[in-house]
């Protein structure tokens, strides 16, 4: 047995309780053969980063629908950087207005997948970015 599996943490930062989108993505990644660590609702950026590190994931997917993305997404990236774990890819999804996307990318979010994105696109993106990292 010698296989390198892509491991992804799917997390819900912030206070909204809508996790259907996060679950749809988690399920799609599972079906693509990834190992998906799902941490549940209302996680602080500190919790998300600690979990990402202990699970040694290749990527963290953040789902947020409450509007706090401009604070919470960059905060996760900042904490990863502080812990020397900025090689972990961060992507996001949820209700993110178009005009916020450039700012988030500038802060280090690799990609934002807004509602209506086919899950196959997320899978393809992660395969390209994480698949041949080793």
């Amino acid at each position, binding site marked *: *047995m*010698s*296989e*390198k*599996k892509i491991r992804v943490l799917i997390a819900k930062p912030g206070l909204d309780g809508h996790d259907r989108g996060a679950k749809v993505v*988690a*399920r799609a*990644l*599972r*079906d*693509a*053969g*990834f*190992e*998906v*660590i*799902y*941490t*549940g609702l209302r*996680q602080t950026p*500190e*919790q998300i980063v*600690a*979990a990402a*590190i*202990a*699970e*040694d994931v290749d990527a963290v997917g953040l789902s947020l629908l409450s509007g706090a993305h401009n604070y919470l997404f960059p905060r996760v990236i900042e904490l990863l950087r502080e*812990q*020397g*774990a900025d090689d972990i890819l961060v992507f996001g999804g949820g209700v993110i207005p178009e005009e916020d996307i450039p700012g988030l990318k500038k802060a280090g979010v690799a990609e934002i997948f807004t509602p209506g994105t086919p899950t196959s696109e997320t899978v393809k993106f992660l395969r390209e970015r994480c698949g041949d990292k*080793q």
Partner: protein
Amino acid sequence: MNRDWGALLTRARAGDKRAVARLISGVEEGGGTARTVLDQVWPQTGHARVFGITGPPGAGKSTLTDALTKCWRQAGLRVGILAVDPTSPFTGGAILGDRVRMGDLTLDEGVFIRSMGTRGRLGGLSPASSGAIHILDACGYDLILVETVGVGQSEVAVVETADVVLVLTVPGLGDDVQAIKAGILEIGDLFAVNKADRPGADRTANELRTMLTLGETEKRDLPVLLVSAAQNQGVAELCQAMEQRFSQLEGSGELARRRELRLRSELLTQIRDGMERRLLDPLLEGADFQQAMERFQARQGSPYQWAEEFVRHINMGGSG
């Protein structure tokens, strides 16, 4: 992947969780990497107590793991948790969701949680579970909790991995005939009925006790406790009962026997793998085997006859 595993281990033992995580990924990768990691880690192992928690899906294993861990943290112990969830046999993917119940532990410096997929292994654990236990052990976690996948009736691999096995069940899963069937109920060193706030919990506990009295004398008095992990009721008592079971097994010499068996089986697995690689691989590539296959397929010679033929010609003592 080439890493300086020795340096990683030094960092991991100094409390760097990223390094611990990397070492576990190393054993999960398998092959030569797993070997290199274990070569480094092995001399530092053999100190931790390993508790297994098993039971059907939805019994509350993760919630209980969370509650028990808090209990041991209060006693100042460092706790490592391995939480196993099923890998899809169809896609190889997995949703590892045990952390959902352990959010409070995430930021505790003295707790390390790792989720693992079963990755094709039957029995309720992952192929890398024992390697991961050795790593947590070497990194100074005093107590390691291994939470199996939600098991049915026959996934008992945890018994080969843990010092003490807790079988967790819930009310309403079946009658007393279920309780005397072979399988996971045979491996319990102690039992707990979770969701004890629900109707029927007492009855389930009594059925378990009755089941135990029908069996071997030394198992007749095994503890059966009622808990409600989500309400944190009965957890301290369970914690204590688990420690007591450990001490009993230690005192009776049973623990030493189990640990010896476990190490023996770990060694045998490696010897078997090594023999297979060294003896079988060249055989399968050889022309003799191809010719034999042709005749065998034409129904000349039974599988036993051919096996005997090949085994007789294997060069056991050669340079390989």
